[in-house]
C-alpha cells in the first residue's frame, strides 16, 4: 500500500513476537509486533494497565524480556545491550529523583552513567533549552512538579540518545508546560531524535504524533498513520435539525438506525466515511418520502479519543 518502499534501515526499533508474563502469572504483553521509524513521533495509546510501561521497560532493560526479540538500530537488546541502552533515553512516568542533589549534578550524573565523557557545554545548552538554567544549583526537593519533570527530561537527554521514550510526559502538568513540552518534542524530532510517547491525552497524540498505536490488555490492537487512522476508523455523524419534533423514529426509516436527540428535535445518523456507500442519499430520499423536513444539518467527525474508546471496547 505504501508508495515508498521501506527498508529495514528506516526502522530504529523493531519488536517481534514480544510476550511478557510476570512471575505472578499475569500476562502483560501478548505477541507484540511493532516497528518504529527513524525520526518519527510515535504515540502509544492505551488505558491504565494496558502494558505501555511494561513494553517501554523491556526495551530499556528495566524489565526482563519474556519471549520474542527487540532490536534498536539493528542491535539486539539482550545480546548487545550496551549498544542499545546507549542509544535510548527514558523519561519514566513517575517523578523519581534524588531529593538532595542539585539539578546540575543530577543531569551530569546521568550523562556519566550512560558512559559519556563530561560535556558541560552540552549540559548547559540542554538546561537552557528546558528553562532549567536558573535552577541549576537548586536541590531537587526545592523544585515544583513541573520543574522536576523538566529535569527528568534533561537527564534522559543528557547522553544525546537517538530514541527517546516519554512515558506519560504530561500527566499532571499544566497547560503552559504541556505546550512547552510539545514544542520541545518537535525540536527533538527536527534534530533527528525518534520519540515514542505514551499518553492518556488523546489530544496529545492528535497534536504530536505521526503514527499512533493503540494497546489494550497487552495487545497492540492497531498501528496506523494518525491521519489514516482517523480517516479509516473515523465515523461521521450527520445531525438533522427538524422542523417539527418527533416522538419516535418512523418505522419507514428503521433501516437507517437513526437516533433521536435534543428532545426529538434532531435526528442523528452515523455513517462510515470509508464505507462503499455513506447511505446519505438514500436517507435523504427516505426522509422526503416520509414527509420529514429539516431546517439545517451538520456533520461531525470522531476525534481520536472517540476512536480510541471504541477500539478499546471492541478489543475487550
Amino acid at each position, binding site marked *: 500500500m505504501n508508495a515508498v518502499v521501506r527498508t529495514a534501515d528506516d526502522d530504529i526499533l523493531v519488536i517481534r513476537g514480544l510476550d511478557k508474563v510476570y512471575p505472578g502469572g499475569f500476562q502483560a504483553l501478548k505477541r507484540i509486533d511493532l516497528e518504529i521509524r527513524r525520526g518519527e513521533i510515535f504515540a502509544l495509546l492505551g488505558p491504565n494497565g494496558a502494558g505501555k510501561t511494561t513494553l517501554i521497560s523491556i526495551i530499556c532493560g528495566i524489565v526482563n524480556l519474556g519471549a520474542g526479540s527487540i532490536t534498536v538500530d539493528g542491535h539486539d537488546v539482550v545480546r548487545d545491550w550496551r549498544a542499545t541502552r546507549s542509544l535510548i533515553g527514558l523519561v519514566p512516568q513517575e517523578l523519581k529523583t534524588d531529593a538532595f542533589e542539585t539539578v546540575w549534578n543530577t543531569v551530569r550524573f546521568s550523562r556519566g552513567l550512560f*558512559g559519556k565523557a563530561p560535556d558541560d557545554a552540552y549540559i548547559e545548552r540542554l538546561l537552557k533549552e528546558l528553562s532549567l538554567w536558573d535552577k541549576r544549583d537548586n536541590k531537587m526537593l526545592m523544585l515544583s512538579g513541573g520543574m522536576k519533570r523538566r529535569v527528568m527530561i534533561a537527564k534522559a537527554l543528557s547522553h544525546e540518545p537517538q530514541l527517546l521514550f516519554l512515558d506519560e510526559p504530561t500527566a499532571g502538568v499544566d497547560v503552559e508546560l504541556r505546550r512547552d513540552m510539545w514544542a520541545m518534542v518537535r525540536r527533538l524530532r527536527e534534530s533527528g531524535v525518534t520519540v515514542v510517547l505514551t499518553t492518556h491525552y488523546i489530544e496529545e497524540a492528535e497534536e504530536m504524533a505521526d503514527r499512533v498505536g493503540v494497546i489494550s490488555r497487552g495487545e497492540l490492537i492497531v498501528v496506523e498513520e494518525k491521519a489514516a487512522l482517523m480517516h479509516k476508523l473515523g465515523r461521521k455523524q450527520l445531525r438533522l435539525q427538524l422542523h417539527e419534533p418527533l416522538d419516535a423514529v418512523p418505522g419507514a426509516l428503521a433501516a437507517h438506525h437513526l437516533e433521536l436527540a435534543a428532545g426529538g428535535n434532531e435526528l442523528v445518523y452515523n455513517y462510515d466515511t470509508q464505507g462503499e456507500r455513506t447511505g446519505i442519499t438514500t436517507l435523504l430520499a427516505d426522509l422526503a418520502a416520509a414527509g420529514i423536513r429539516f431546517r439545517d444539518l451538520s456533520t461531525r467527525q470522531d476525534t481520536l479519543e472517540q476512536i480510541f474508546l471504541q477500539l478499546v471496547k471492541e478489543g475487550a
Partner: protein
Amino acid sequence: MNWHGIRAIYRFEMARTGRTLMQSVASPVVSTSLYFVVFGSAIGSRITSVEGVSYAAFIIPGLVMLSLLMQSVSNASFGIYFPKFVGTIYEVHSAPLSFLEIVLGYVGAAATKAVMVGLIILATARLFVDYSIAHPLVMVAFLLLTTVTFSLLGFIIGIWADNFEKLQVVPLMVITPLTFLGGSFYSIHMLPPFWQKVTLFNPVVYLISGFRWSFYDLADVGVGISLAATLGFLVLCLAVVWWIFRTGYRLKV
C-alpha cells in the same frame, strides 16, 4: 568497561558522604573515643596487659575492625537500597552498565568511606595510646580485604532488604554481636576451653586476629588461616552478588 558510569556512581556516593559528614565521620570518632575512655582508661587501668601488650593498645585493632565492618555494611547497603526505595534505580538499570560496573561503583565508594573512617579511628587512637604497627603491608591488606568483603555483604543486604527494618537488622543483630564476641576486647585464650572452640565458628574472630597480628605479632589463630578465612568470605560474597545479578533477584522481574 563503562568507566564514566563507574565514576558517576562512585562520585555520587562519595558526594552523599560529604553531605552527611557528621554522621559519617564524627560519629565513629566520638564512639571510638568513648570506648577508649571506658575500656582503655577506666577498665583498662585494672588490666595491666594482654599477652605483653597494654590493654588500651590491645583493643585498637578490634575497635578499628568494629567500625570497619559496621561502616562497610551500612554504607553499601544504604547506597543500593536508597535508589531502590526512591525509585531512581530505574536509571542504573536502563544505563549501559554491567553488573560488575554497578558493583564497582557502589562497593568501591562504600569501601573507600569505610577505609577513611578506619584511618581516622587509628589516628584518634593515637591521641589516647601509643601503638606500633609491626607489619604495615599486612595491616593494609587486611584493611582493604575486610572493607571490600563487608561492603559486598552490605550490597547484598541492601538488595535483599525491602524495608528499612531489614536494612538495620543484619548490622545490629548479626555484625555487632559477632564483632563483640569475636575478640575485639579480649583474647580468645581468656575464654574457657569450650567457648574457645565455639568462638572459632565466628568468622569475625579470624578478621580481628589477623588484623591484630599485623599490629603486635599476636594472634588467636594463625595469620595464614585468618587470611584464608577472609578470602573465603570474600569469594562467598562475590558468588552471591554474581548470582543476584544473574537471576535479577529483587532487581528485575
